[in-house]
Each structure stands twice: as structure tokens, then as C-alpha cells.
């Protein structure tokens, strides 16, 4: 029989083994794409002098794995794009799967002290850690996605995902037979409510008969539950669905039941070739390109950016060939208007669920109204969970 000491050694060994595999599998991975950095790297910490010869070091911090087929995948596509655009003028690094909170601060601090001069953080929860690190590295430019706090060396940027939802709504309004649309929703925050409203308004712009309902799954990522929510709505007669969650499960459910749905954040057509009407995607390249250029030129300024179709940051792509020509045309027309910068999505007269006018005719919703949206427009059924 094994003695006690040996047994506990074995146990400890097993745990160490398991946790080391965990670390390899889930830990962060830093991948420096450009070959050998010039020997000047250590200088970065010792002097903040004028940009020395050698590439601008740009770093990205991601919340998810680059292979998530959604949010992080789209950001990493942007990173690869600027790498191609700027060639050897820049050198990019990314760290994936960094949880929101204290660990993020360590990662930002590490990247800043390794000589990265421009650092992007791509999730809301990085706001506070980034703000702290920004104070300690005044010569490093920080860029935070989807937050609201800025600093002299920290900007925020976001994309108008609701414009993509609106364009999807146009296709949905033209495609639906039951006039019932559905949204698989994550959490009742202004961003998601805005997207539900925009989807509904897009559909109503071509088909006044439609109504929308939302089912909340209380998660950004739970494929089985997203599927159940989609199936529930399909069972209740919904025949076009969109999701404001991260997995393609909604699209798969639609494929299985012979109804329609969309891709969100990235092109998801592979998950439901028949059901897929189009994908509302985010293209981060234009913003990343502009930002890198401004740092290279020395013209970078702290600020807030909210880009959409006009700046080529939002698009509806890969429209299914089965979509009728007139529906496609209606969508393209709206897209052209958005590209001209017309605020057609939340424009008066805008009426909320109870029939109260929230925006008179001729007026446009301002940023404050958009960023704090907490009402459903007319045509959305049910109530926002409190």
C-alpha cells in the first residue's frame, strides 16, 4: 500500500499537471508578428525621447480568443489589416483571453513597459485598469473600445452596430411571411435595446405590419440557451431572427427549422447557408488605420469616436442569393443613405411602445439619447426586463 506521503505527492503532482495544462491551454498568448525587433527595445523604458528609428509598436488586448468567430475575431482581423497596410512601419502584438479586472492592469502595464506606444483594449471592463496605467505612462497612447472615460492620453472608440441591425431589419421586413420578428438578446443595456429598436425600425421602413419580440438569455455566450431562445420564438411563429449574443447558435436553429436569421459581428454564413440572409459585421480597420496614422504623424489627440456605415466601420455583407432583388435593392438604398451620413435610423417622428412621441418630426436623436436608450419603439412587444 502506498504510504500517506506518497499519496499526497501524487495528488499534488496530478493537480500541478492539470493546472499546467490549463495554463498552456487557456493562458494568454503573446504573438509578435514582425520578425526580430530592432535592438533598440530596451531603450523604450529608459527614455521617452522623440520616436526613434524602428517600427511603431502597437499592442492589442482581447477579452476572448481570436478564434471566437465573433467579437474578438473581428478585432484581430483589424489588427492583421493594419499590419498589411503599414508594413514594416509598425509592429503589432496581441494578448488574448485577458479577463476584465486586475489581471488586465498587469497586462497593460507589461505592454507599456515593453515599449508599445499605442495600446488598444477591446472590451468595456478594461476601462478602469487602462485609466490607471495611462496615468503612469503619459507618452503611451491608449485606445479603449465601448467605454466612456477618457484621459489626455486615452481615447474611446465604438461602432454604430445599430446601423447594421437596421439594415438587417430591412431584409427581415421584406422576407418575413408571418410578420413576426425575433431577437435573441443578452442583457438589457442601452446598446442592446438600441439594436432591437433599430432592427424593428428597419423592418417597419419596408413593412409596417411587422412586430418584434425579444427573449433575454442573460449571457453574452451560452450556445445551448441561445438556441433554446431561438427555438422558442420559432415555435411562437417568428420567422426571421437576429441575435445580440456572441455565438452562431441562433442562425443554426433557424437553419434547422427552415426559417431565416443573420450573422452578427462577423460573417457567419457557414453556420446556416440557407437560413443566412446576411451578416451585420463590424470592420475595425478604418479606425485602427486612422489611429495608427495619426500616431505616426504625431497628430494623435484624445477624443471619442463613434463610427458607422459612413466610415465603413459597419456593413451588411454576404446577402443570400435567395433574397429577392427588391429586398436587396431596398437595403442597398438605406445603406447608401447611411453612407452619406444621413441619420435615418433614429429620426423623428419616433414613437415609443406606449404611443408617446419621443422625438418630433424633423429631429434626430443625439448621442446622449442614443447612449442612454431605455425604451422600446412602437412595434416591439413585451417589456424591458428591469
Amino acid at each position, binding site marked *: *500500500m502506498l504510504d500517506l506521503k506518497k499519496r499526497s505527492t501524487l495528488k499534488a503532482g496530478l493537480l500541478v499537471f492539470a493546472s499546467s495544462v490549463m495554463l498552456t491551454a487557456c493562458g494568454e498568448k503573446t504573438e509578435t508578428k514582425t520578425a526580430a525587433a530592432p535592438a533598440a527595445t530596451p531603450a523604450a523604458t529608459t527614455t521617452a525621447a522623440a520616436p526613434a528609428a524602428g517600427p511603431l509598436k502597437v499592442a492589442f488586448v482581447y477579452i476572448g480568443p481570436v*478564434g*471566437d468567430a465573433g467579437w474578438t475575431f473581428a478585432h484581430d482581423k483589424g489588427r492583421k489589416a493594419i499590419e498589411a497596410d503599414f508594413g514594416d512601419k509598425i509592429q503589432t502584438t496581441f494578448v488574448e483571453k485577458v479577463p476584465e479586472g486586475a489581471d488586465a492592469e498587469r497586462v497593460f502595464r507589461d505592454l507599456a513597459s515593453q515599449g508599445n506606444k499605442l495600446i488598444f483594449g477591446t472590451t468595456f471592463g478594461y476601462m478602469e485598469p487602462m485609466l490607471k496605467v495611462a496615468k503612469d505612462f503619459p507618452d503611451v497612447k491608449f485606445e479603449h473600445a465601448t467605454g466612456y472615460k477618457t484621459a489626455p492620453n486615452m481615447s474611446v472608440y465604438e461602432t454604430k452596430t445599430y446601423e447594421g441591425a437596421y439594415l438587417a431589419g430591412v431584409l427581415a421586413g421584406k422576407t418575413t411571411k408571418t410578420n413576426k420578428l425575433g431577437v435573441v438578446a443578452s442583457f438589457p443595456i442601452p446598446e442592446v435595446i438600441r439594436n432591437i429598436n433599430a432592427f424593428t425600425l428597419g423592418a417597419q421602413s419596408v413593412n409596417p405590419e411587422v412586430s418584434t419580440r425579444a427573449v433575454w438569455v*442573460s449571457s453574452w455566450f451560452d*450556445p445551448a440557451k441561445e438556441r433554446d431562445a431561438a427555438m*422558442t420564438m420559432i415555435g411562437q411563429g417568428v420567422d426571421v431572427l437576429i441575435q445580440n449574443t456572441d455565438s452562431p447558435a441562433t442562425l*443554426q436553429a433557424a437553419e*434547422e427549422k427552415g426559417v431565416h436569421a443573420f450573422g452578427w459581428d462577423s460573417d457567419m454564413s457557414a*453556420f446556416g447557408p440557407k437560413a443566412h440572409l446576411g451578416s451585420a459585421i463590424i470592420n475595425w480597420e478604418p479606425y485602427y488605420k486612422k489611429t495608427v496614422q495619426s500616431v505616426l504623424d504625431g497628430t494623435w489627440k484624445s477624443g471619442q469616436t463613434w463610427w458607422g456605415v459612413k466610415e465603413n466601420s459597419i456593413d451588411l455583407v454576404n446577402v443570400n442569393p435567395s433574397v429577392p432583388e427588391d429586398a436587396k435593392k431596398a437595403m442597398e438604398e438605406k445603406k447608401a443613405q447611411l453612407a452619406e451620413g444621413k441619420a435615418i435610423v433614429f429620426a423623428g417622428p419616433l414613437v415609443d411602445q406606449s404611443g408617446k412621441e419621443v422625438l418630433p418630426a424633423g429631429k434626430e436623436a443625439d448621442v446622449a439619447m442614443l447612449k442612454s436608450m431605455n425604451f422600446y419603439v412602437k412595434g416591439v412587444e413585451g*417589456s424591458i426586463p428591469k
Partner: protein
Amino acid sequence: MDTFLLLLAPALAATINAGTPLMLAAFGLLVNEKSGVLNLGAEGMMLVAAIAGFAVTSATGSATLGFAAGALGGMAAAAFFAVMVLWLNTNQYATGLALSIFGAGLSAFVGIPYTGMSLKASSTAIPVLSKIPFIGPVLFNHHPMVYIALVLCASLAWFLNHSRTGLVLKAAGESPESAHALGYNVRMIRFAAVLFGGACCGLAGAYLALVYTPMWQEGMTSGKGWIALALTTFACWKPWRVVAGALLFGGVTILQLNLQGLGIAVPSQIMAMLPYLATIVVLALISRNPDWIRLNIPASLGRNFNPNAA
């Protein structure tokens, strides 16, 4: 009334579908526990099986091979656990927890090239029967694995109560010393039970990755292994009660989603808690009656048995 039935049919069908992976995993864990071994690694085994099944099906196009690979993957993970627990006498709780963490990490690592891929969604309906109004869509429009799970339940109920091997298995879980003294190889009996548990958890994991949401995503079981573990206690280690419990747990989720779709306002956070709340309530209820639980809980559950020391 008609519209009510029209809404009820898909909800009931979805409940059966949602309950199936819970059932499959819980059957395996039930046999596992009846032999006296508690394997907390269900979540890890399911994830390993999910990626194994997904990889094989996406390479071969065959769902049957995918399920076989899932069962084998689950068994491999279970064998690892069994060697640690049965031969090296490590603590069952710690080893099981390690397996659940290890399985999550390993599957995430192996699964990297498979994220973003999809399998063809397939609809399966039994001809003729699925055309019966109401009953057809509720009962006869499922994946074959749903029916296999029910057959498995009937076989298990018979095996545990009416077969000699079943009695020997239970003896190993009640009093391994007595079984050993009677000349049974307790170690091998437990090894077989643990492997069976792994295979069933494997089928459950493969069901998620091949049928329920035909894709691979890291951590996609999202707690179903733990619910299956709770389910065995909930069911007092009786196969038919496992079915009832699985349908109840699956049904709670489906019910809350359906209420939302109908526009009935219930706070989403409360509804998201419901399955777990139901588990706690049932656990509290059955623990209040110690005789109930003692009648069925394997007396040596979680206790290691070393034949060399007996």
C-alpha cells in the same frame, strides 16, 4: 385552446430535447456512483467528448462515428480518473475536480482549429408517426439519441434491480469489503462502472456538439455536467426519476424562455436562476428526510477501497 396547443407542442418538444444530454450524463454517473465511486469530472469528460465527437464528425461526415468518438473520448478521460482513484488511491473528490478542470483546458486547446466551423444542422423525424397532430411533433420528431436515452433508462432499471451483475455492482458500492470477501474483484467492477460513466457523459457531450448546437465552442457545456451530478442525487439514484428530473430541469429553462416570448414580464435574472433554484429546493427537501436518501445512497460512495489492505 388551439393556439395554446400550437404553442405547447414546440415547448414540450424542446423540453425533451434539452433534457436528453442531462439524462445521458446522469445515467452514467448513476452507475458510477452505484459502484461507490463519485466522479466530479463530468463537465471535463463531456467537454473532451464534445471536441472528440465534433472533430471526427467534421472529418468523416458521419454522426454515428462522432458519437462513437465522443463515447471513447469520455471513456479515455474516465480511465485516467479510474487509474488515479482505483489503483493509486487518490482522493475521489480532488481527482474529480482536477479532471473537470483538466478536461476544460484540454478540450479548449485541442479545439482551437475547430472554432468557427459548423456541422450541417439535420432535422430528424420518424415517418408517419411524426405526422400525428400534437403528439407527432412532441414525441416523434427527435434525434435517435433521444430514444436511445430512454431505452438506456429502461435497461438500467432492469439491470440494477433484476440482474445478478447489477446486484454485484451495487454490492461494490454498498460494502466493498463484503464483495471482496465473497471473491468479487471490486477494483475491476468499479473500473467498468467508471468507464460506463465516461461513455455516457461522452454521449451527452457529443449530443451537445453534434445535435443540440452543431458546433464547437470552448466551454460549451456551460455547467450541464454539474447539473447532471446534482440530478443523480435529486433522483435518489433511480433511473426513471433521472428522466423526470432531467425533463424538469430542461423544462424550467424552456418555460422561462416561452414566457418571455409571450411577453409575460418576469425578471430575466430570476428566470436564469430557476434551474439552480429548483436543484437547491429539491436537495433541501430530500435531505430533510434522511431515511429517503439513506435508502438509496450507496453506503460507500466516495470511499476508496484498497483490496491489498483489506
